[in-house]
């Protein structure tokens, strides 16, 4: 089979040190074993990287990967960015929507690998298989929006898609994001800093080659079915109208919204002031979408009056609202919108940004930080002007901002004086802004996530009640225990299985190029069976639902192995001191914390279900070989991280 459908079938590989550009066919076996995107990225990184690499040295590699469904109707063209993370020292992996990923395929490539370091700032231009490494002296120092505009004008093609870093990436802020389509962020884990360390300011894609599909008529028919199923579902209307901003309304009553650096979950006026309804009624001007996506959860907004009058922006997510709002005791939506713009322009992950600032205020209140540390600033909650000031400092690493730019875990390490007791992190990563102590399956998912604390790697929405709704019968049948829908229960039967299922599921979604929002993750009727149909019609390759589930497991095991090879085992799956010792102060989750013994029992159970050693979490050879990962097993054995059974 020479011809590729779905996949373009090509990898672009650039050595920046020698300015050498090469391309080669995508490995067929990789495509059937890992599908694409996050799956293939992870395996490539595992094979390419030596474990003693420094994330910000030229030896690190950054891979941009699309999935075979990218650039086909409804698939959104998401892509994954994968690298050794400067935020955690572990697997760095982040996914982004927008239009850039699809355009990379139209330009002729599924994957782009960047190695080495350019001796001067450059940008990369990929137009219909013609690749140029160009001088970026005149755009270095510009923000993401300025860079995007400048490059589009320069190549005189407004349809070109620009991926870029802002000043934060240049300054190696540990949580600098890889930005594309102006406001879409592959935000977590500091990919922007890796690009900055390689002196790569931007990557422009533009192409006219399209994506060939195996069965065009079948694909259209199948798409019609999916389109109808999703748009006629009652949950559909939330996405077009509000996007994730409506989760303020949905999650606040469940106590999942953390305030004041994870101290409490309630604050009067929150829903009215920063909720999705207020956002849409007062600020939204028009709707916006990712490539080929009919869910269009994105919006353009304008601030009509007040201090930030006339400020225009786009893309407000619940995570950003919460990180720049409640987490800082701030329920002033106009300031949140303004800060969201700053983060998008500087190229910063909003979650980690809110995390750094909230830790700083917390430590200041406790007297661990003083004015001597903060450039004389008085740090306090609910002070948007202060936070705006801190964002400018962080992105430029100016003064106190140099400390904030480290991210909360490393900040605390540098401060000492007991600061680490107040950090909420998983594998050194600032978790998504959710109160995890009251929901034990979510806690397990966040702590076992291969890239550090995070909701998109397998948080089970089924554990959250509220407007998403959970049918306990369906859950019980699927995961073997009715307790999966009871947040406070440390269930060792159903919850670990549920977490594992969602983790494998998420891995598959990230590998295909789809967005989780249009799947069962958001409780739409789109699961492995539907993925199987889409993949068959698009690629011509038959992946059965069981194959896909196994592929999800395979992807997860490679990522786990990547971290184990670096020496991060069971310890790195355990909750930080703060989550074990401090209880939630109010709301429906009042009194909740993570009981380490009970958590350990769930973790034991999770390891056993995964086919890993119950005590160490190291995979068994038999498990890896059953997943066709014999080479990974051999590599782990060399590092003493394999159980030979």
């Amino acid at each position, binding site marked *: 089979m020479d011809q590729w459908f779905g996949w373009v079938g090509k990898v672009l590989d650039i050595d920046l040190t020698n300015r050498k550009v090469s391309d080669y066919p995508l490995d067929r076996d990789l495509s059937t074993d890992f599908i694409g995107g996050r799956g293939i990225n992870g395996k490539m990184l595992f094979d390419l990287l030596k474990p003693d690499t420094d994330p910000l040295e030229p030896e690190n590699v950054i891979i941009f990967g699309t999935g075979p469904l990218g*650039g*086909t*109707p*409804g698939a959104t063209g998401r892509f994954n960015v994968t690298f050794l993370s400067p935020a955690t020292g572990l697997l760095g992996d982040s996914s982004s929507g927008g*239009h850039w990923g699809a355009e990379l395929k*139209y330009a002729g490539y599924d994957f782009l690998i960047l190695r080495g370091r350019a001796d001067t700032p450059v940008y990369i231009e990929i137009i219909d298989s013609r690749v140029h490494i160009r001088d970026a002296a005149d755009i270095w120092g510009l923000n993401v929006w300025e860079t995007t505009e400048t490059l*589009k*004008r320069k190549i*005189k*093609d*407004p*349809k*070109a898609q620009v991926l870029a870093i802002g000043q934060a990436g240049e300054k190696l802020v540990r949580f600098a994001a890889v930005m594309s389509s*102006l406001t879409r962020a592959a935000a977590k884990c500091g990919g922007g800093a890796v690009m900055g360390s390689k002196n790569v300011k931007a990557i422009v894609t*533009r*192409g*006219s*080659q*399209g*994506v*060939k*599909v195996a069965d*065009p008529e079948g*694909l*259209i028919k199948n*798409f*019609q079915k999916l*389109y109808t199923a999703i*748009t006629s579902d009652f949950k559909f209307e939330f996405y*077009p109208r509000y996007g994730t901003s409506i989760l303020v309304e949905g999650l606040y009553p469940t106590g999942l919204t953390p305030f004041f650096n994870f101290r409490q979950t309630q604050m009067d006026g929150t829903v009215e002031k920063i909720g999705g309804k207020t956002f849409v009624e007062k600020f939204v*001007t*028009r*709707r*916006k*979408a*990712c*490539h*080929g*996506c*009919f869910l*269009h959860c*994105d919006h*353009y907004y*304008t601030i009509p009056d007040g201090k930030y009058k006339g400020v*225009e922006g*786009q893309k407000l997510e619940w995570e950003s609202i919460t990180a720049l709002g409640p987490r800082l005791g701030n329920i002033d939506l106009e300031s949140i919108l303004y800060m969201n713009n700053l983060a998008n322009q500087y190229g910063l992950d909003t979650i980690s940004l809110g995390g750094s600032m909230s830790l700083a205020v917390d430590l200041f209140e406790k007297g661990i930080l003083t004015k001597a540390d903060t450039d004389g600033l008085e740090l306090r909650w609910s002070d948007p002007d202060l936070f705006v000031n801190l964002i400018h400092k962080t992105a430029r690493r100016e003064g106190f901002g140099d400390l904030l730019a480290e991210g909360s875990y490393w900040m605390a390490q540098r401060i000492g004086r007991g600061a680490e007791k107040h950090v909420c992190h998983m594998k050194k990563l600032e978790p998504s802004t959710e109160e995890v102590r009251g929901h034990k399956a979510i806690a397990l998912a966040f702590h076992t996530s291969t890239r550090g604390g995070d909701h998109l790697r397998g948080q089970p929405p089924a554990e959250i009640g509220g407007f998403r709704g959970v049918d306990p019968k369906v859950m019980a049948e699927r995961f073997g225990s009715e307790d999966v829908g009871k947040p406070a229960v440390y269930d060792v039967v159903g919850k670990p299985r549920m977490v594992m299922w969602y983790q494998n599921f998420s891995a598959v979604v990230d590998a295909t190029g789809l967005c989780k929002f249009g799947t069962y993750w958001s409780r739409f009727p789109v699961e492995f069976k539907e993925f199987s149909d889409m993949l068959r019609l698009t690629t011509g390759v038959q992946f059965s639902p069981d194959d896909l589930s196994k592929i999800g497991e395979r992807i997860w095991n490679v990522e786990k192995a990547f971290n184990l090879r670096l020496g991060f085992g069971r310890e790195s799956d355990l909750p930080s001191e703060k989550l074990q010792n401090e209880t939630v102060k109010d709301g429906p989750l009042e009194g909740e914390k993570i009981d380490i013994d009970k958590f350990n029992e769930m973790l034991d159970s999770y390891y056993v279900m995964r086919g890993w050693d119950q005590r160490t979490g190291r995979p068994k050879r038999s498990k890896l070989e059953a997943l066709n990962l014999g080479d990974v097993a051999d590599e782990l054995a060399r590092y003493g991280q394999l159980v030979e059974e």
Partner: protein
Amino acid sequence: MDKVLIFSPDRCTGCALCELICSLVHTKTCNPARSRIRILTLEQKGVVQTFCQQCEDAACMAACPVSAITNNETLGTIEIDRELCIMCEDCIAACPFKAIYRDGIDEKIIACDLCGGDPQCVTYCETQAVEFLEKDSVAIQKKKKSLQELEGLLKLLEAYTGGLGS
């Protein structure tokens, strides 16, 4: 045929699903560069969407040196005769709506054919930014308005980048 295709820029999300569907229907591949309807977002400033307006007195037709472009009165569309076409692209230059294109893969000139009376871009436009409406006075008024907006956006685009690009 008494229906017209109408675009409402304020409803468009810029997703370009219309481009993907159009190219899939007409070329069996997903390729916006081969679509007969094209989307270009100027972010807050608006969305430029271009597709053949099926003009009765069409500039492309007048510009064609070999009379390859004709009106199909049954379907209410313009038609391009591939046998006669010499690929001079005079039609592309003449179209005031930037709505006639060269398909670089099949090497032919393409324009919207209304999918023979059931435009598929309309079927999947969730926000109804593209509509196929009975040609009554309301629809005609709406179309006029959208073309005025398009004219403004095309001018803006000219100043912005020097044209539509490829």
